[in-house]
């Protein structure tokens, strides 16, 4: 029995470490290869030994697909390909391919240089890993091998984020990665056609949230930043270098210009300019408005936003600083946070989701006394604000996407179990499809029943369809033919053609039954009576009286003959071929009952 199997190695009832194994029609595909920001031990990477303990990963996977450049979707890639060992193809979009190695290098530096981790992947490994990447363009059908094909759809979320359709024959799986159903300041909304996949694997970060309008959130954000700066405070916005950062920069840049504000805005790390340059080169991946106006004004050239220097953190006076990373788990954003946390005039705005175990998550859940390294306790007096700018679809958006794709089954990943439970019920009710939410390491098996494509000879098809057009064809008609199977080539042809192709002759099987009737009349008269009797009973059939005295019903022949011994008995010879057996046999039994008396 064919089936689709799905096993999350990460992101099963959890956010972070996205890594989902899919088996479809004998092909194995790994979707994303992320790291978990909440852990720094073995658990930060997916457990690839699940795929194989001894063999080479390349033998067990047909391909790997990376949905976008966020580290919780690609952070384990060099470890997976270079340290565990995988040499097969890795597919991602071009912007992801461009930006992913930069974030990986960033991540490596923090882990090795700042935290002093040993046995981590090296810069060379990142390079070697990226050599295995094949770029995928939107809507292009990429043939991984003769049977397996993949296709990318626009997902919004971050620059170059894509949803992927994985297809073998008539079976398909769509994996959304992270996506956003509403356009934002720099990206468009996710879109997919009615591709009716056997299974849709969707993220569910905001499974229970219906977010208010984006405008309100933006106004709120600007108001909070403005108030803080006005009273001389400092605003820290932890972000990832690429993605939300650009959207918020565009927002602040236009606000500063409009309000003629003077407080400096900084962007940490030397990445800024480079990052913005990527956005300039990948304009076709941004939203409609930016694409339309980029010739006149490139939105990613900022006038008010300048590079940050570490020394600025101690300067007096108001300022706004964008610093990486976004969850306050390490690096510059955490350093600045420690410096500014003690002053109630300051503010930290968390613009995105924070994984459990990170400082970001702790302060957002209300913790105000943080235990730092060396048993030091940091008291947080600064204001802590959460603004959901993460570009994930909310519950409404997820339902919308399910409606667009019309899947036969849905599977939820990248969310919290409790919220998933709620969304699962909603999806099952509204769309009447099964919805699954496996935990990590748990396998969901979906039996599938793919139809078999064959070639039907046009002659046979036309003959059938012409028959189907007859007005009396209310009953479903049976098509009869022969399926010729040669290697993997399946053809359905008429029986006659099959015989001819195979060089075989038809064997005709014919029956002739003798029906004895007591009747003294002449044979010709008998035939006449048989004719009128059959004509009256078989109204829908073609009954004919031929000049030679015989009677035909369709292709069945009835002849009247004298009995060789008994002149009072006549013999009716009913003759038909095997193909007309039902009618022939019926006629025999009908005639056996005798002919009605002439009135």
């Amino acid at each position, binding site marked *: 029995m064919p089936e689709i199997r799905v096993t999350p190695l990460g992101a099963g009832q959890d956010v972070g470490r996205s890594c989902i194994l899919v088996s479809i029609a004998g092909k194995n595909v790994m979707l994303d290869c992320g790291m978990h920001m909440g852990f720094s031990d073995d658990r930060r990477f997916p457990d690839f030994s699940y795929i194989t303990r001894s063999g080479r990963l390349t033998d067990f996977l047909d391909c790997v697909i990376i949905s976008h450049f966020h580290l919780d979707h690609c952070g384990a890639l060099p470890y997976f390909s270079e340290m565990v060992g995988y040499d097969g193809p890795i597919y991602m979009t071009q912007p992801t*391919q461009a930006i992913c190695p930069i974030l990986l290098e960033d991540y490596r530096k923090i882990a090795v240089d700042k935290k002093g981790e040993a046995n981590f992947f090296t810069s060379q490994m990142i390079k070697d890993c990226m050599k295995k990447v094949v*770029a995928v*363009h*939107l*809507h*292009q*059908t*990429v043939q991984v091998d003769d049977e397996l094909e993949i296709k990318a759809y626009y997902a919004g979320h971050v620059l170059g984020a894509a949803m992927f359709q994985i297809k073998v024959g*008539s079976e398909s799986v769509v994996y959304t990665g992270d996506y956003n159903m509403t356009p934002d300041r720099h990206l468009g909304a996710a879109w997919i056609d009615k591709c009716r996949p056997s299974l849709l694997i969707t993220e569910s970060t905001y499974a229970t949230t219906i977010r208010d309008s984006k405008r309100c959130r933006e106004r709120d954000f600007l108001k909070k930043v403005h108030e803080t700066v006005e009273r001389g405070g400092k605003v820290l916005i932890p972000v990832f270098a690429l993605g939300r950062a650009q959207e918020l920069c565009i927002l602040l840049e236009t606000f500063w210009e409009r309000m003629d504000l003077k407080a400096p805005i900084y962007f940490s790390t030397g990445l800024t300019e*480079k990052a913005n340059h*990527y956005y300039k*080169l*990948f304009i076709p991946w941004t939203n409609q408005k930016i694409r339309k106006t980029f*010739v006149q004004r490139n939105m990613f050239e900022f006038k008010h936003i300048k590079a940050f220097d570490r020394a600025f953190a101690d300067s007096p006076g108001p300022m706004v600083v964008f610093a990486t990373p976004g969850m306050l788990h390490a690096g510059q954003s955490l350093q600045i946070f420690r410096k500014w946390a003690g002053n109630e005039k300051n503010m930290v705005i968390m613009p995105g989701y924070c994984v459990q175990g990170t400082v970001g998550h702790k302060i957002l859940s209300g913790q105000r006394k943080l235990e730092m390294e060396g048993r030091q306790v940091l008291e947080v007096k600064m204001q802590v604000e959460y603004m959901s700018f993460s570009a994930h679809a909310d519950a409404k958006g997820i339902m919308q996407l399910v409606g667009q794709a019309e899947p036969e089954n849905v599977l939820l990943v990248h969310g919290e179990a409790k919220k998933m439970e709620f969304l699962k019920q909603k999806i099952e009710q509204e769309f009447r499809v099964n919805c699954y939410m496996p935990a990590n390491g748990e396998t969901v098996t979906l039996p599938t029943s793919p*139809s*078999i*494509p*064959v*070639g*039907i000879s*046009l002659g046979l*098809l*036309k003959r059938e*369809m012409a028959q*189907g057009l007859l007005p009396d064809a209310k*009953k*479903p008609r*049976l*098509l*009869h033919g*022969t*399926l*010729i*199977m040669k290697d993997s080539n399946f053809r*359905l042809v008429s*029986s*006659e053609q*099959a*015989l001819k192709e*195979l060089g075989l*002759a*038809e*064997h*005709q*099987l*014919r*029956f*002739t039954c*003798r029906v*004895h009737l007591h009747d003294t009349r002449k044979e010709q008269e008998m035939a006449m009576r048989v004719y009128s009797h059959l004509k009256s009973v*078989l*109204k829908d059939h073609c009954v004919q009286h031929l000049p030679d005295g015989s009677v035909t019903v369709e292709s069945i022949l009835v002849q009247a003959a004298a009995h060789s011994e008994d002149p009072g008995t006549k013999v009716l010879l009913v003759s038909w071929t*095997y*193909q*007309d057996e*039902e*009618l022939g*046999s*019926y006629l025999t*039994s009908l005639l056996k009952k005798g002919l009605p008396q002439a009135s």
Partner: protein
Amino acid sequence: MCHVRMEQKTTAWKPSIWNNLGLSETLLAREYCLSGHPTLPCNVLKFKSTTIMLDCGLDMTSTLNFLPLPLVQSPRLSNLPGWSLKDGNAFLDKELKECSGHVFVDSVPEFCLPETELIDLSTVDVILISNYHCMMALPYITEHTGFTGTVYATEPTVQIGRLLMEELVNFIERVPKAQSASLWKNKDIQRLLPSPLKDAVEVSTWRRCYTMQEVNSALSKIQLVGYSQKIELFGAVQVTPLSSGYALGSSNWIIQSHYEKVSYVSGSSLLTTHPQPMDQASLKNSDVLILTGLTQIPTANPDSMVGEFCSNLALTVRNGGNVLVPCYPSGVIYDLLECLYQYIDSAGLSSIPFYFISPVANSSLEFSQIFAEWLCHNKQTKVYLPEPPFPHAELIQTNKLKHYPSIHGDFSNDFRQPCVVFTGHPSLRFGDVVHFMELWGKSSLNTVIFTEPDFSYLEALAPYQPLAMKCIYCPIDTRLNFIQVSKLLKEVQPLHVVCPEQYTQPPPAQSHRMDLMVDCQPPAMSYRRAEVLALPFKRRYEKIEIMPELADSLVPMEIKPGISLATVSAVLHTKDNKHVLQPPPRPTQPTGGKKRKRASDDIPDCKVLKPLLSGSIPVDQFVQTLEKHGFSDIKVEDTAKGHIVLLQEAETLIQIEEDSTHIICDDDEVLRVRLRDLVLKFLQKF
């Protein structure tokens, strides 16, 4: 009454079904050829009940018959003498002007549209665009023929195509011309005119340029596609664009069903310039390959032309002259700028200003940098650094290349000579180029270098004669030449090739060059403007899906090694051009038989088909089988063609021959069925 109504219903209902099923055109695909220009094609393909327009190129060579539109009042042009007939009749002198022995129409320039009468263009379902040069007639088609379909093109094709149209509209609209000449088009008058006006075709259908509003409306009908994207049309046909290597986003198209494949090859290139390389492999196994858009200058090598371009440019500038390069705002200009980027320092030209003047110059330069995925590998890798893919970004940054929307405004302040100017239009009939021809034409220090191959440079120059300026002809056409075509055809091996008639014979000027034509076996089928071609392929198969439940019930039987058969009885369902076979409905069991059935219920449905039989019956084994099943008293007689088996007791006779068996018995149904089943044991069903 009732009967009549019934019949009307069925006849009204039949044709529409036939169309939906895609069978009305089953055995033939047709091609309607609407353009005679081999590099600006416009064909309509009717294939499996879909009507697909392949490109809609606009033949602009018609504008060569018109006087140039000067941006600045030109006393020379406005004082040209009117033309009069040999007998001195001067009634056309307002419309026709004479310049150095050539006659020109003094009017708003007009274009030669694709044929609109050959086929009702409102029936076109989709238009496939292969590159931005082949879509210039789009507004005429989508806005004025009742077209309601969809246009498919890649993003660079649309964006750059828009720029080309915008430039064209701008060039023509900014020089309003009061006069629109039409007298000369009268057939009787046209006959009296000198060549080439006399020979101009279909002048009555020539049209003025469209408006920006029409352009926007036309472009809004385009749906963007990516290379190798499979696009389903009505479930019957799948179309796919493939990289063609000629220009940014340029494509060839595959049009296929499950069993037939048409490849449409339009402007393609195997040279390594800036676009992504041509995808040749996907063209394999085509039934028909339609070949258009080959190089217009088969004898010129693009590489040596670029070399000549650079050296002539350097020579002129060193001597203190100016260089004028009439060009389109996108395409080869990117490659020329790249060559110059590498060349100017070594040639000592670093202080010479390069000007690029076009209303869309800035947009073209900007757009070229954001289409990384459509570029060749070398350029693609640049964006990973991240660096702009084209070096003209650096030329602009270092002020070596400056771009302006027109000669008015900033340009007049910045203008320094000697210099190099890239500007349009290559026909020299409109655009800023007209001004530079008037300005520099009188000095032999200056040079005009023709790089675009679309217009004959001699004809383009005709209204500017006499000229002192040097003219260099370096046509750079990177499209396939005939050697590359024959290599390509050997590689992809289409069953049939269809191409414009120009490609099936050597060029008229080089009639001895038998190598300058398409050479393939079987010989290519050729087409010309306004011709309808039946494409030579027969459809034999159609895809059908066997539902899993039905597939499970099939019993395959190996007939020969590697070949298995299964008889199929199933119900056919057809919807949206897709066919599905489902298992036959289970026979409904009679419910107890309390009610007496009407006699007619017993009459079997003669439409239930039984399989055909094949094989032969070995008499000895058959007799043994009969005996095993309790028949005795069996007698076998030999006949001329076989045997007769007699069951004397049952008064039954079985004639067995090589290909037939005849059972003759009394009306004993039980006996007959028993004998039937024993016979069937020896036969195979089909």
